[in-house]
């Protein structure tokens, strides 16, 4: 049983570190983990879940705004991008945030093709993060079910 726990913990550590190394997460995610404790063991998962709901809503807004036959209201697109940039920054979703920065620039430049590309990328990126985090949370569950504790991962 201990061997299994140790193995899972090592897997978890490696996986978490890789998410930072690949730029999916940044230190704000680490900050969120500080806010989680035994009394609020699911805080991070809950916040991220809200974030992903936000992604769906805002990306929907952007898609609708970009889908106008006739003139596109880039400021409307930009407003949603600004919101997504904010919430991705608050949860440590580094890649999503980075894309939003670029996206915002295309909005300001009224660059339709650039915006459409960014929209597609942002959609792919948030879903990729969602999958990765789901795998990470599943590993946490497995560790707990195997009788172990989720290790605190030192990112450096």
């Amino acid at each position, binding site marked *: 049983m201990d061997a299994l726990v140790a193995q899972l913990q090592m897997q978890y550590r490696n996986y978490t570190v890789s998410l930072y190394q690949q730029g999916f997460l940044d230190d704000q995610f680490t900050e969120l983990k500080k806010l989680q404790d035994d009394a609020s063991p*699911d805080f991070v998962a809950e916040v991220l879940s809200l974030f992903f709901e936000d992604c769906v809503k805002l990306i929907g807004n952007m898609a609708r705004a970009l889908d106008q036959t006739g003139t596109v209201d880039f400021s409307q697109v930009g407003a949603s991008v600004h919101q997504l940039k904010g919430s991705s920054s608050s949860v440590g979703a580094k890649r999503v945030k980075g*894309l939003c920065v670029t996206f915002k620039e295309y909005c300001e430049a009224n660059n339709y093709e650039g915006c459409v590309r960014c929209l597609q990328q942002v959609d792919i990126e948030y879903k990729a993060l969602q999958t990765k985090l789901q795998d990470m949370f599943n590993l946490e569950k497995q560790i707990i079910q195997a009788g172990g504790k989720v290790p605190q991962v030192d990112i*450096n």
Partner: protein
Amino acid sequence: MARDGGVSCLRSSETMRVGIGGMESPPLDLDEVHVLAVDDSLVDRIVIERLLRITSCKVTAVDSGWRALEFLGLDNEKASAELDRLKVDLIITDYCMPGMTGYELLKKIKESSSFRQVPVVIMSSENVLTRIDRCLEEGAEDFLLKPVKLADVKRLRSYLTRDVKLSNANKRKLPEDSVPVNTSLPPPPSPFTISPDLSDSSPPLTISPESSDSSPPLSPLEISSSPLSSPIDDEDDDVLTSSPESSSAPEESPARRQKMTSPLD
């Protein structure tokens, strides 16, 4: 979870002992520390609420400047002398909000006789010197750069505690400050919804030992970037230099500086 964008409010007062990295602060009487948080983003509201609660504050989180004014009883013209005045020790607000910006909210608060002495902290994702100066000139106590971290909030709490202790002292004699103070929060008015706690509020909260103060042992990583990592952030525009000479008033310099202003007299 407050998903409706309304008001989320703690009902219970919790006595929390905050122990971070071996340092312990004395338990606060939480009936005394109440923060009003204003942010149009739900994600940010949940995070700031958690940050504040973990640092021993009671929190009311609203989604707009209008709701904030409504909560404070400042949304109508007539003098609210008869109103049972809420005790709010700190107001922390996002800058960029639709409708009323944080700056506009700040002005309204500073114009009100009841709440002008309440410290107001502005949060923004954009590090713009002119914006920061404007807020500080208008009377903002501090300016936090988003994303807000635990160390930022703990810094706020350190000067808040000092202010609260002074106002507690005043309460026992005649209040010397112009703000009539309640010793306990009134029950939340009916239009507001109460959010279910994200945490189980009955056991005292303990902070896991890995969390720390401004110099965390788990140093926030910044792993070398992958090819897909972010391009230059727009926050680099108008970046503040951290040296005091960048501002005419050294004590009111850039975001994340040490809190300089004096406590309430």
